């Protein structure tokens, strides 16, 4: 029971991070039907931006309040990552809209290679550790000398994720931007005829996905305390798995899928084998796509001639 509870806490934390990344995949797929393969590396790059500004704020500018520094870092990372994602969409994806089916996917794979290698060249191939931030936590229960704890970092991740998802939900459901987005998702041509600026809406979709990925990147950095240029691929695939599991195109689905993937991964590592935890995630991806391609909350795919 105690191990179960601890793994549950860890799983929800990991799942929140996956969920935040998964939203970027699911929104882009929903609106232009493309797997944004570079999204995992956008996440990784945002973690590096967060790392750099965290160091600048704490060591160069000497901000001593960790919470303040983290909030500032998160905002800066969101802005810069959004800019990056906007530029990527503009350069690598927009010219290929209306091109043949595989072109955007290949371009996205290329962009993913570019991002991870750019970070490797610019920042070096080594792991980048940061000093622990926000150490300590709350002890929930203690049985037979096994203490179940929630660390302050985990609480931070839960709170930030919950607040952002609420804001995001409001943005998509209640604002004109969200309406334009949903209109483009249903029928891009018709939306354009009705005066929706489709290009701008698609750009903003990429920007929103990237902003959430930047939050995930900052949280990832503060949770694990280390980041490497190759950290984009596996979390990216897992987040994509989350998006597929939840039903691609569905926003609540992405969050639920993220939580499920996080839970499955931590329980698998806790009870079976930590070596095969990635195999578990990839197997779920394959199984879900084969037997339940519409996911938990997605709409079934309609075959058009």
């Amino acid at each position: 029971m105690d191990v179960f509870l601890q793994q549950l806490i860890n799983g929800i934390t990991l799942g929140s991070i996956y969920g935040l990344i998964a939203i970027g995949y699911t929104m882009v797929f929903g609106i232009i039907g493309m797997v944004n393969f570079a999204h995992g590396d956008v996440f990784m790059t945002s973690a590096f931006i967060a790392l750099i500004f965290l160091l600048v704020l704490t060591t160069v500018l000497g901000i001593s309040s960790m919470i303040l520094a983290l909030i500032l870092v998160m905002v800066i990372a969101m802005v810069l990552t959004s800019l990056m994602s906007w530029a990527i969409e503009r350069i690598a994806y927009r010219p290929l809209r209306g091109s043949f089916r595989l072109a955007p996917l290949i371009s996205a794979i290329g962009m993913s290679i570019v991002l991870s290698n750019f970070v490797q060249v610019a920042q070096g191939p080594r792991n980048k550790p940061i000093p622990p931030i926000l150490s300590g936590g709350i002890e929930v229960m203690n049985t037979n000398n096994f203490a179940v704890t929630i660390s302050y970092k985990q609480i931070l991740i839960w709170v930030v994720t919950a607040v952002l998802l609420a804001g995001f939900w409001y943005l998509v459901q209640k604002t004109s931007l969200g309406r334009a987005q949903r209109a483009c998702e249903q029928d891009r041509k018709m939306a354009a005829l009705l005066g929706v600026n489709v290009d701008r809406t698609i750009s903003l979709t990429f920007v929103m996905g990237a902003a959430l990925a930047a939050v995930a990147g900052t949280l990832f950095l503060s949770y694990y305390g280390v980041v490497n240029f190759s950290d984009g691929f596996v979390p990216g695939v897992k987040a994509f798995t989350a998006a597929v599991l939840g039903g691609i195109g569905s926003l609540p689905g992405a969050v639920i899928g993220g939580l499920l993937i996080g839970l499955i991964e931590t329980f698998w590592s806790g009870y079976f084998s930590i070596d095969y935890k990635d195999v578990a995630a990839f197997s779920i991806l394959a199984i879900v796509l084969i037997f339940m391609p519409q996911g938990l909350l997605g709409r079934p795919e309609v075959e058009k001639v």
Partner: protein
Amino acid sequence: MAEATVKKHGPDLSAAVKDALLSGLIALGLFGPLVGLRTEQNIRNELVVQGRWGLLASVIAVIIVGRFLLLTLVWPAMAARKERVTPAEAPSPVRQTLSRWFAPASLIFLFLYPAIVVSLLGFQGSLKWVDNFGIQILIYVMLGWGLNIVVGLAGLLDLGYVAFYAVGAYSYALLSTHFGFSFWILLPMAGIFAALWGIMLGFPVLRLRGDYLAIVTLAFGEIIRLVLINWRDLTNGSSGISSIPKITLFGIKFDASPTGFAKMMDLPVSSAYYKIFLYYLILLLALLTAFVTIRLRKLPVGRAWEALREDEIACRSLGINTTNTKLTAFALGAMFAGFAGSFFAARQGFVSPESFTFMESAIIVAIVVLGGMGSMVGVALAAVAMIGGTELLRELAFLKTIFGDNFNPDQFRMLIFGLAMVGIMIWKPRGFVSSRQPTIFLAEKKAIAGTLVKEGHG
């Protein structure tokens, strides 16, 4: 943006300057932290940031100047060219003749290549050019042609192709080190194993379409790699299998022993013979792949693949068994990857899961797509350009005299590879050779432009 005005009235300088400066500002945001501030560990293992403002300034300057030139010179010139050439036109007769003679000429060149290199550089000097360039490129040509059956002909995007390459490599590595079988027995076996894996993995996934199929094959590729890493009893984990036996020519070994090739032929001992032998072997294997593909395109199954690529629903309504058709393409592609894999293991003498990462799959897919899906010549050209080009980067030692001794061109290999992938997709989404050679025609054989071909939903 300024593009629209440029097209109508020629270069508008003040707008171009404004636009270029704006790009510079964006570039500052993009590259400022990642290029301008480098994180380094100091002696106490703490991370510190170091400013690299000079580098940052030069990167931004390059972007501003580049954007300005693009707006004022490159795009107007391209727009003017576009008005002259109507799109979707078949290639001109000159280019058709050229492309007809290109393949035989390059084939002759490939067979003479080791002789040319040896006569120019001697046996020792030729090693690098035969091994690093010749064999390395030909392995990718073969993999590209193998994947071309799956992606180019049948239109199924397979992002886990490297898994079958791994199956072939590990089949040879394990069976030859444990049971001492020869390469010539294990080559077909590796192909059969890989094909069986292709059928096993293909069977459940092939009813998926498009991007979903791509992602599931990626997942399978990663699962196989992770199993190879973690199943330590069998595969020795990430340390890999070493001292894999070399290939023999009718039992003749390529070593310095009395029964070895050099002694038997009364030649001075050199490792170049083995490399040249390997070169011809992979050349023949690659040509086998090409030959089988060309012949299959003319058989019912090949025509069914191409029909499937163009329109799956029409195929089904015409009574083509889509599952079997896809499965044959998948299995055949996997078989050639298995051949290439066993050759790879024998050539390296060492295999480890490191060689079979997703990046390899991405490189092979890139070669097929950039070459122009379905075009054999295009795939070969793309392999030469992408693999040869990135290998060449290792040779650019003179750049050290410009950028200083710390400059290592090798580290830009994959960065340039990725940029080339994106760039070629934007410039030529249909790949280098975008025309199609139909296998069935009325009266006259004529290539058609790729833009006329509709790529279906796969």
